[in-house]
């Protein structure tokens, strides 16, 4: 393999050694395992569940950054900082990552495995073979070995925090909302998932906002769920040795920003495609370029993004409007992006379509269902980018097996098209027939892609196609962290 060097000039000098599939590799202090692996030219970090397609660090598809770290499966490599001697191992391989027989499953015609394992009539139950067959399915679907047995697992105690105003999100808008309330003498808590404030804004070149010192700042915590009609929120630190957080507030402000969802075109799941926030933060904070030859696409903001990436030392070879992108090509990683012409590249950064984080607002106002009751209004305040309307998700014309709406479960637009043609347009039903969105990312972004596809194909307006129920905790919480909550949240009596 040709040596790639994606490290930018401003990289930290402190080298830390760790292992990828038993091979020693080097990272730099302060970066995540996912970034360090990319800097080493390692782009394929995981395989999709059924067809064994390659996945990598994208900022969108969580399964692309899940690996075994020191005996614990499904650790998020993009959140785990490099540390000396850490052993990182690829999952969904058998018998080993170096000699992986499961790769043969790429040869299975995708029609055979549509609908997931649970709708196959190949070996019906009640036959002599079924238990054996089920065991094979469970082995394949499980992807990762269970955690190594190390005796009892400590339960980190949970904490309760209450505030006059709770602000979720530590970007400029969140800081401003917190400062304003602090100035009014309110008791303010600001929770952000980043380890520091305004990472994205700073990566884009803005100054670090100043937070009023009366604001209680909680960093490295993902607020993942709203309960009891929005009266109780839960958060969990990325570090699983720290306890979960139960949050209550008189006033809740969402400053959760937006994320760039992948447009629905063939190949958008390939390693090398990256969401703009992730790419920018990685290039700026961790000094690693998304690729050697980067194509930037966006919904109007592509020139600004390209300019900033170039300032940081990234080689941007083309800048185009998002809507012009036809497909991304490559077998195991991005090789080219197709517009009216072909542009050779090894990375594609997409700025948009920008969507807001929908799950907290959904849980804050839903009766949990779109079944027998109506949704209630949500009285939370939305500020900053979170208050802006969602951008439409571009949809490429023909259905294709290479357009994955849900890469974790290999659900393609081809498979969904077949359902739409039968008149099935209820997203809840499509979810249950295909398992679309039931993997580690729990429908984000897959349900947005699915919804855009079904709307484009059926002619049903987007607003009339409700997203399937957005359920917490979207893997933000470990079992041990959840166990700690028993002491701080009483059942309703």
């Amino acid at each position: 393999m040709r040596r790639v060097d994606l490290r930018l000039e401003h990289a930290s000098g402190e080298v830390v050694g760790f292992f990828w599939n038993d091979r020693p590799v080097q990272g730099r202090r302060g970066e995540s395992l996912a970034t360090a692996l990319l800097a080493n030219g390692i782009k394929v970090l995981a395989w999709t569940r059924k067809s064994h397609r390659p996945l990598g660090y994208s900022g969108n598809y969580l399964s692309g950054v899940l690996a075994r770290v020191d005996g614990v499966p499904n650790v998020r490599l993009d959140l785990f900082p490099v540390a000396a001697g850490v052993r990182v191992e690829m999952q969904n391989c058998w018998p080993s990552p170096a000699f992986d027989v499961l790769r043969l499953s790429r040869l299975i015609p995708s029609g055979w495995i549509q609908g997931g394992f649970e709708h196959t009539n190949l070996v019906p139950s009640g036959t002599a073979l079924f238990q054996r067959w089920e065991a094979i399915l469970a082995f394949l679907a499980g992807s990762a070995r269970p955690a190594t047995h190390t005796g009892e697992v400590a339960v980190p105690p949970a904490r309760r925090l209450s505030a006059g105003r709770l602000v979720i999100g530590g970007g400029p808008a969140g800081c401003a909302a917190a400062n304003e309330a602090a100035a009014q003498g309110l008791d303010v808590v600001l929770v952000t998932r980043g380890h520091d404030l305004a990472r994205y804004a700073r990566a884009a070149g803005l100054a670090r906002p100043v937070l009023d010192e009366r604001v209680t700042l909680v960093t490295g915590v993902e607020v993942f769920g709203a309960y009891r009609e929005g009266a109780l929120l839960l958060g969990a630190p990325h570090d699983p040795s720290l306890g979960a957080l139960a949050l209550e507030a008189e006033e809740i402000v969402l400053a959760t920003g937006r994320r760039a969802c992948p447009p629905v075109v063939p190949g958008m799941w390939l390693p090398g495609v990256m969401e703009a926030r992730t790419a920018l933060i990685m290039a700026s904070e961790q000094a690693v370029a998304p690729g050697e030859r980067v194509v930037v696409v966006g919904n109007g903001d592509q020139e600004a993004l390209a300019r900033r990436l170039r300032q940081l030392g990234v080689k941007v070879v083309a800048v185009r409007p998002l809507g012009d992108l036809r497909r991304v090509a490559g077998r195991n990683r991005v090789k080219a992006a197709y517009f009216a012409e072909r542009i050779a590249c090894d990375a594609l950064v997409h700025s948009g379509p920008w969507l807001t984080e929908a799950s907290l607002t959904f849980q804050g106002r839903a009766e949990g269902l779109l079944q027998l009751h109506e949704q209630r209004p949500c009285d939370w305040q939305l500020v900053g980018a979170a208050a802006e309307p969602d951008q439409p998700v571009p949809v490429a014309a023909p259905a294709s097996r290479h357009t994955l709406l849900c890469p974790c479960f290999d659900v393609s637009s081809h498979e969904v098209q077949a359902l739409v043609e039968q008149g099935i347009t209820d997203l809840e039903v499509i979810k249950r027939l295909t398992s679309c969105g039931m993997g580690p990312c729990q429908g984000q972004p897959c349900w947005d892609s699915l919804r855009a596809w079904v709307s484009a194909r059926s002619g049903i307006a987007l607003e009339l196609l409700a997203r399937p129920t957005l359920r917490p905790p979207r893997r933000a919480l470990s079992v041990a962290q959840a166990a700690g909550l028993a002491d701080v949240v009483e059942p309703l009596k």
Partner: protein
Amino acid sequence: MSMPNPLPAKASIIIVGAGIQGLSLAFNLAELGVRDILVLDAGYWQGGASGRNGTLIRGAFSSPEWTRFFAHSCELWQGLSRRLGENVMYSRRGYTMVGERSATAGLLDRTLAVHKECGIHSHLLTPGRLREVLPALAHERVSAALHLPDSGVAPHHAAMHAYRRACEARGVSIHYRTCVTAIDQSAGRVSGVRVGDQRIASDTLVLAGGAQSNALAQMAGVPLDGYPMRLEAMALEPTRPLIGPAVALLDRLCYMHQTARGEVVGGAEVAERPQHTLNADVPVMAATARAYVEMFPQLGHARILRQWAGLVHISKDFGPLLGAHHALPGLFVSAGWCYGHAGAPAAGELLAKAIVSGQVDERMRPFAVDRFELNRPVVEPGIVLSHFE
């Protein structure tokens, strides 16, 4: 599974509720030769409890009444793929009931005696055998374990898919997103239902509305025991197999299994004021997580993918309310189900027979709709549920 035709003006039988109870009944009626069966459901396919359960199929309990009924159902599950012509993926992986307190070991001894009396295949596991069946369990906490080798699980998406396809193949008309808003009567018996302005005539009506059963009974102007209760479950991120059989941790009111998709799915009951919502809450997730960490320490590191709630209809004795309604001719009920997934094949078969021939099977008789009025509750000590005091 395509879009259904417009609603008909009449039907020979109308079933309200296309959960697993409604579909199993429709299938069995069609098998008995009934035509023009209409099934109406207010929500989406699998939107009710039948798409939200733990999928456990337990073929024996601690009372002879429950045991005889559910053993029959469990047997039907084993041949169900063949009968429906679609894979229900019934996994005969065994069901292990684990006790921690010594009092629970006593309950398991008495349960074993009931199983013997009913001719059920079950046995207590020695510590050595339990280690083979459930190697990942925290064995030092266990006082006794009773194993049901014929029981297991069937994924609800597979079962609901198979029942629906089998019904449609037999000409049953199923309409989702179609809410029954009124029940008509004339001359002292059922005469049809209404969906908004539209009237559909039928002299036979079955209420299989799950948690909405009381509301439906009210529409028919008849009494019905029970109330809606929220149950919750959660799924962990998948791994390769760690837990073989289905498991009930009796002292924690917790049940669980690892699905064919690798997710550990389960839930623990927590006493709460009955909730009429499909929003999940925190205490059940926390109690379930605590049960997992303590009983299967390797799960402590696992991440929770999602949690959800479903509504079931709970009767005074937790048993089903199954059969003709005594107060209104033409009206039948299949309600009160907290193990309605496990019980669906038997309930559908026996209720269909009762509707078509008027004969009430012995295994169904104890669960008659009017048993509380007659002061004949069925006492079942071995279920993982409790009423809120």
